[in-house]
């Protein structure tokens, strides 16, 4: 029993370690940087607020509308190419928003394909909208984020009971009335949760807003950290962001709690109907095809064209080292996340105490926090630890070891683990749901110890889930930009950082190959997991 308490606290300690960067940005307020804040409040904060909230709101509204409509069409109606369309609509998830931003900038600038074409056709291209703006940021971000809403709404719409539809028809309701009065209210919690995920991504986004020159709280953190060199004020600004996000999480938690109310019953789920009117069918096709074209086909085609122009110049030793660097950190971080999550989940499962469950809850919050905030927090935590270590080694060996934590790859990997532990945990926890407690009890009554249950029952049953978790975290790490920019050791470049640097230097053509590599790798989990998930649902 003493052992149990020890292990239960281990889980909590792991959770607190993962939460430490986020907690430390709050502690930064212990020594407020009034001078820097004076400047921030006078000159920057209003813009930061307006832009951040407009961006979040815009992305939330657009992803909700596009995702809901797309999910409604493919879940309710039967038409040619529906099945292909159903999973193609997940593909935009593979494109990081910042790559979409670079690509659209290229497509829409003066020498880009759109303006060139309109000049040839109409003589003038002055009416082509400026993409490097707040509406432009909302546009490119919504295009890659709507699949969050789409995936959740698709599941909710597919689970609508057939009987609901028949009752509506019996009472003389039209398709439109069924959608508005029955389907939408029932699926609302799922749609809301999906929109919330997009909003939190929009909140955390750095690459897009930095490139488009739209100052938000995230670019503010960078500006204060690097531009003004005031790390504490950067942390304090981060704390402000974290407070907003905690509020959003609360809203999301509330929406998800309501979602549970109707998802448990096993009823015959709704079957797809043919579309009766040709004009309606045409409209549906137009909507779905243009959504997919804007979100995936156009940007990928543009990138492929750029790559075609410059492929020979780009495939070189540097690209190989970029790939190696990216893979190295991503594999280490992904394995660390999976191991940590299995360790925590297994203990939580066996002990089932309030301590362990609290630990799991703390880790579940992590994904919501922006990479920039986590990087700032991690830097503070690790440099504090470095100082202590150096004081200690100075005293012991009369020598300093330097910045062994904050100045090395350790900092980067630690930040990745903190940022993506939630993703791994979600997978591992959902894997554990497939193991019924009765299986453990059966094993126990057959004379097996806890360790044997873990190795002989848990691990074999979980193994596909663990592989999926590792893969998803691997890809997330590979795509990650803001934390990598802040924490990478000097001269250490990854695919995402290189893409960012080349795009910032307006070398979009040269950025295309690393960008395509990121998208290609990003497609693996979308195709493997997304497809299964949708079909299962």
């Amino acid at each position, binding site marked *: 029993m003493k052992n149990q308490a020890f292990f239960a606290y281990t889980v909590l300690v792991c959770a607190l370690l993962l939460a430490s960067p986020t907690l430390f940005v709050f502690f930064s307020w212990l020594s407020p940087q009034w001078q820097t804040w004076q400047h921030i409040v006078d000159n920057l904060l209003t813009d930061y607020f307006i832009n951040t909230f407009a961006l979040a709101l815009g992305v939330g509204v657009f992803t909700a509308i596009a995702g809901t409509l797309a999910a409604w069409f493919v879940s309710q109606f039967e038409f040619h190419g529906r099945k292909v369309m159903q999973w193609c609509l997940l593909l935009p998830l593979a494109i990081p928003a910042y790559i979409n931003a670079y690509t659209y900038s290229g497509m829409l600038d003066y020498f880009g394909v759109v303006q060139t074409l309109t000049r040839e056709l109409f003589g003038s291209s002055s009416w082509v909208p400026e993409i490097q703006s707040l509406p432009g940021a909302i546009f490119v971000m919504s295009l890659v984020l709507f699949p969050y809403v789409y995936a959740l709404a698709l599941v909710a719409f597919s689970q609508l009971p057939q009987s609901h539809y028949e009752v509506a028809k019996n009472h003389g309701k039209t398709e439109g009335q069924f959608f508005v009065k029955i389907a939408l209210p029932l699926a609302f919690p799922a749609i809301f949760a999906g929109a919330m995920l997009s909003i939190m991504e929009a909140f955390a986004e750095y690459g897009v807003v930095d490139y488009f020159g739209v100052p938000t709280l995230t670019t503010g953190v960078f500006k204060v950290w690097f531009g003004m060199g005031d790390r504490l004020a950067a942390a304090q600004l981060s704390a402000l962001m974290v407070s907003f996000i905690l509020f959003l999480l609360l809203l999301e938690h509330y929406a998800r709690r309501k979602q549970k109310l109707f998802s448990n019953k096993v009823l015959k789920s709704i079957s797809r109907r043919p579309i009766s009117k040709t004009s309606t069918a045409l409209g549906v096709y137009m909507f779905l095809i243009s959504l997919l074209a804007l979100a995936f086909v156009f940007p990928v085609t543009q990138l492929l064209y750029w790559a075609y122009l410059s492929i020979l110049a780009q495939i070189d030793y540097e690209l190989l080292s970029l790939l190696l660097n990216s893979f190295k950190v991503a594999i280490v971080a992904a394995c660390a996340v999976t191991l940590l999550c299995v360790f925590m989940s297994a203990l939580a499962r066996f002990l089932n105490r309030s301590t362990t469950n609290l630990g799991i809850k703390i880790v579940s919050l992590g994904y919501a926090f922006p990479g920039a905030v986590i990087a700032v927090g991690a830097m503070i935590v690790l440099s504090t630890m470095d100082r202590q270590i150096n004081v200690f080694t100075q005293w012991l060996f009369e020598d300093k070891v330097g910045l062994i934590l904050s100045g090395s790859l350790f900092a980067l990997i630690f930040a990745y683990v903190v940022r993506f532990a939630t993703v791994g945990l979600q997978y591992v926890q959902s894997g554990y749901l497939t193991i019924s407690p009765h299986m453990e009890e059966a094993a126990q*009554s057959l004379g097996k110890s806890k360790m044997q249950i873990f190795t002989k029952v848990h691990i074999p049953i979980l193994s596909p889930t663990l592989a999926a978790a590792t893969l998803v975290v691997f890809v997330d790490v590979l795509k990650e930009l803001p934390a990598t920019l802040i924490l990478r050791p000097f001269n250490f470049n990854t695919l995402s950082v290189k893409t960012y640097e080349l795009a910032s230097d307006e070398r979009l053509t040269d950025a295309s190959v690393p960008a395509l590599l990121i998208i290609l790798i990003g497609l693996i989990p979308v195709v493997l997991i997304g497809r299964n998930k949708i079909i299962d649902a």
Partner: protein
Amino acid sequence: MNTILELRDVSVGYDQSTIVKHVNLALEKGEIGCLLGASGSGKSTLLRAIAGFHPVSEGAISLKGKVIASTSEFVAPEHRHVGMMFQDFALFPHLTVGQNIAFGISDSPEFKTQERRREKVLEMLSLVGLEGFENRSIHALSGGQQQRVALARAIAPQPDLLLLDEPFSSLDTDLRKDLSYQIRDILKQQGISAILVTHDQNEAFSFADKTAVLGEQSVQQWDTAYNLYHMPVNAFVADFIGEGCFIEGTIVDEDKIATALGVLINENHDFEVSSKVNVLLRPDDVLHDDKSPLRAKIVKRDFRGANVMFTLELSQDSVGTEQKGNLHESVEQVLCLANSHHIHSSEDSLAVRIAPEHVIVFAK
């Protein structure tokens, strides 16, 4: 006799609330017991306490004379040598049928070698009638087959006691009966002591040698099916088991009770003369007899194939004049199970005769 399992004054519960209190029962070696009760009666919790998955809050559980659970002692489930079967089968999806069955014997010295284990698996498969299924995947089996694999897995290590937690309730009705007969035969043939948990009294009666009726937070009666039905110890058991009605009676003397259906004989009662009592009448105690002068109004006919269950109302008129003095005002109902060839569909009353073999009387 050789007691395998004994519960002495056992109470179980969650946190502050007790679910079942002061349970006393003993199971002999080779006997099959049953815990029967409605949902929430605590039958499963009691079973889980025997398995070691739930603590006891009072009393002691002993297996083969050794205390395995009490407030001071606790033997971990993996060391109890008690097998368990579940409603959801709980087979391991990543293992084949053969590997599932071998799961519990792989560490035992007796089955160290591959050949010994394989031998045992084949022996178990033939016992449960699944020869040739050794390498099948669990997903490829039907529900009944899965439960037979679960049985083979549970008894392969030769447990001292087998616990079955509603093992048939996820199967359809026909399969459920067949499988319960098959499993009972296997247990009896192997001499395995077992405890079944169920809410289905027919299942309890056909499966178990002795049944504990759980209700109102305790074991009401631990007895054979015959005794539970014909000699219930209290009104709860009488009501819970089988069908029947209570009619009012008045004690005439030490062996006679006057009722609306005539005077009944019970030599063992210890009620005072002229006190009012409830008399239990089972549907088979009330016989249809056209020669009987006693007629009762038919309230409901429930056609059941071989029989018809009549719900009869006893009114003042239906009873002979000599008994009218003993009657109370309210209307009483009894059930009568009659041969279905004479459904008496045109009549509104039925001639009945009362012939209880056991007159069961409870205080009113």
